[in-house]
């Protein structure tokens, strides 16, 4: 990338606790979760509401009646009406997409202060009526129906099995494959053993639990009061006491002879995360110390019918190139853990010279990712994965890691439905 005249920096980030779907946050929709995260961010930074110029929000399960979640958050929070907003979706990379869109707007000089983030409430996924019912009812809903219209509509809806609302499935539209099946296939093709997956999952839980116990997440998580009046202070999915032995007892979910279990997959989660981005000049003039600067990012696609979740293996080298870095230059790495099998598969391909030559057209492998640098405070397996929030959660944790430890560079990688890959590089601001 050409040297940028304006740099986008991460000033702060915070998130709601992440909890299992259909538990504490069941009565809060994605807008309410977003409101909780953004209001927490505003109160913690003490930022005057007036100064927020824009909200860029990411989400996957968008509410049909008000899909521009970002704008609803701004209105619910009574931010200045001039604070414009948009909502983007890029499957599991939606939160990162929101952050990089905000960074791009800042770099272009379109804004100086932007809140970016994302949220999802799997608990509030809307059940969809089959299209057959919608079409059958259209004459009744939209016109002046005659009795024969009612009879016709009824007749069209038989047999009844076809018209009952369908159970929502997170399946690829083009291939019909469910995420877990894709992870199962990737485990087989990349020869990732059950033991390796369970060990990875256990480490994710242990590291997340250690981070929580040490207070490392305290300034990243804002307590949330539910409509019932109860306060939720902490993540609900992390299991400090899990072990490889315990995980080994779980049955595979997606294939009888498979290796992917509930224990080594990320769970359905409710939550939200928000990041405050500014131009470096504005942050300085406001006397705020940026936690990190956004150096580069990249989005790629691979064929979803091949290896659905391999995208980071092509996005990461591209983002590194754009930052002028090699993998070895990076001090800390956060890979979204959709499935242990998927992270391990991506790691394997990044280390493969054959992959680099045949798929990336480069002589050297992208590089090895050793466990010491990877997901040092756990990942989505342990913390959970509210789809739209994950990218902003990772940006927050990595920016704080750079600010707290003196490490220089952080790399993020996310896989997403549709065969998408996403990556970003953060650097320390001295």
């Amino acid at each position, binding site marked *: 990338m050409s040297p940028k005249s304006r740099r986008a920096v991460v000033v702060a980030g915070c998130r709601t606790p992440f909890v299992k779907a259909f538990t504490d946050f069941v009565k809060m929709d994605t807008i309410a979760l977003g409101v909780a995260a953004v209001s927490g961010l505003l109160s913690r930074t003490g930022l005057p509401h007036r100064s927020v110029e824009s909200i860029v929000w990411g989400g996957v399960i968008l509410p049909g009646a008000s899909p521009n979640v970002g704008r609803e958050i701004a209105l619910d929070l009574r931010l200045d009406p001039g604070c414009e907003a948009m909502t983007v979706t890029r499957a599991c990379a939606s939160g990162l997409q929101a952050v990089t869109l905000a960074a791009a707007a800042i770099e272009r000089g379109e804004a100086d202060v932007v809140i970016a983030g994302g949220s999802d409430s799997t608990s509030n996924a809307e059940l969809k009526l089959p299209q057959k019912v919608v079409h059958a009812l259209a004459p009744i809903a939209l016109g002046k129906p005659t009795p024969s219209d009612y009879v016709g509509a009824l007749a069209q809806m038989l047999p009844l099995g076809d018209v009952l609302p369908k159970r929502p499935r997170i399946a690829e539209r083009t291939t019909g494959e469910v995420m877990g099946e894709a992870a199962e296939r990737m485990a087989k*093709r990349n020869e990732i053993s059950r033991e390796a997956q369970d060990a990875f999952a256990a480490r994710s839980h242990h590291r997340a639990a250690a981070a929580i116990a040490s207070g490392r997440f305290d300034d990243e998580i804002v307590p949330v009061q539910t409509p019932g009046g109860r306060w939720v202070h902490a993540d609900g999915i992390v299991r400090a006491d899990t072990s490889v032995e315990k995980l080994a007892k779980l049955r595979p979910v997606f294939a009888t002879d498979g290796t992917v279990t509930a224990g080594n997959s990320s769970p359905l989660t409710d939550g939200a995360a928000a990041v405050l981005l500014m131009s470096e000049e504005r942050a300085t003039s406001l006397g705020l110390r940026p936690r990190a600067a956004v150096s580069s990012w990249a989005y790629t696609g691979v064929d979803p019918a*091949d290896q659905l979740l*391999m995208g980071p293996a092509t996005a990461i080298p591209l983002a590194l190139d754009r930052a002028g870095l090699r993998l070895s230059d990076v001090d800390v790495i956060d890979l979204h853990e959709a499935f242990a099998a998927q992270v391990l*598969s991506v790691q394997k391909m990044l280390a*493969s*010279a*054959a992959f680099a030559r*045949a*798929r990336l057209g480069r002589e050297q492998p992208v590089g090895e990712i050793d466990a010491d640098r990877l997901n040092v405070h756990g990942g989505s397996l342990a913390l959970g994965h509210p789809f739209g929030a994950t990218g902003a959660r990772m940006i927050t944790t990595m920016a704080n890691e750079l600010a707290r430890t003196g490490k220089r560079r952080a790399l993020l990688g996310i896989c997403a439905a549709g065969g998408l890959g996403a990556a970003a590089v953060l650097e320390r601001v001295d």
Partner: protein
Amino acid sequence: MNDLLLALGRNQRARALVRRMGIPLPLPVPLDRDPGPWKARPLADARVVVGAAPAAAALEAIAACVASAGGDAYLASPEAAAAFQAPCEAFSRPARPLDSLAEGERVRALVFDATGIDDVSGLRALYDFAHPLIGRIARSGRLVVVGRAADAAAPEAAAAQAAIEGFVRSAAKELGRAGVTANLLQVAPDATGRVGPVLRFLLSAGSACITAQPIAVTARARAVEEPPLVRPLEKKTALVTGAARGIGEATARALAREGARVLCLDRPTDLGQTSQLAREIAGSALAVDLAADDAPGTIADALRATGGVDVVVHNAGVTRDKTLARMTAEQWDQVLGVNLRALVRVTAAIEPLLRDHARVVCLSSVSGIAGNVGQSAYAASKAGVIGFVRAAADRLAPRGITINAVAPGLIETRMTAAMPLAVREAARRLSALGQGGRPEDVAQAIVFLASPGASGVTGRTLRVCGGALVGA
């Protein structure tokens, strides 16, 4: 166009009934076809067993082809493992030993690297590979042997490589009942790098009707670096003569599907139909009577206006079937005039307009190879085409231009539907696959020869005949 036996063969119960009653009725197997566009991974998750004789030279090309096409390789020869390691790792499809394949599991394809066979005793490796596996190929599967060109070698090596041709032709006849094809690549030592795209085509569903063919792969024509695997004809301009119907129409559509801008040419009387086709495929139409003396000039002018041409398909042809004794000189002249004279003259006129790496494909016919009663003029013209491409290839090769012929056998078109039933039935059944081809089968062969990856094939005639028993 109704093939009763094929329709019967489609019905599982009818198949079982015929077998149970012991009726000696060879029900042909409906073929898996792919009308295009080309897929990135035509072998997605298909099992491919690869074997090799000692000193095999094409294993790396085979490995890269199978892995990038999405196939799962099973190795019958442990020595092949080294060549398969890197490509299989790159596509997360580790090659596995053959014995890890469960008993009774069928495979899509067998590929054998016979390039190292240079004596008669070496042929035993081919038997040892094929004998236990031949029955495990799934319906519409493939057997491809990669061998050497037999001519330039020492006599015993030539004998061994020529023997492989006999083997493959026989295997094709044995496998045809299951809709399986068997083909042989005869690769020149300096053309191993060009095997990939040819092998990919032969393993794909697009080659369903090509069987019992030896295909020479040489380095005569300048190669294209990294030929595209999908949309091979993007940004290419193509000319198809006789495009109004039948094979020409199917070809124009198939070329357009792969991204080409197609100039559809046919007789002025068919302009309506040609224009309709051109509109549907976003090409353009050109009305030319190829028998006319000014036809080459008219075509050259049209191509000059488009700034040159990348693909030329000489498909226009006429039949005036009469036994020699009954054929009038006029009929003779008509057939030779359109089928051969026009082709030669048009090619000469447009040669300067062929872009580098252009592809010329001329329609021949199995009649041109084998001859046929009542087709002395037609067969003469179609045999002439074979001679023409053989000789023209060298002149065009330095510019990377290839010229080939495609020789269809019985293709189910309006023209062949008008044939007497007995003749048509005989033509259908006297082939390895036991059925006629479709215009789309010929179109797919033409698209392959028109693609950048086909640089290794020039001056040759590719039969699309389902393994017709007649001819060499």
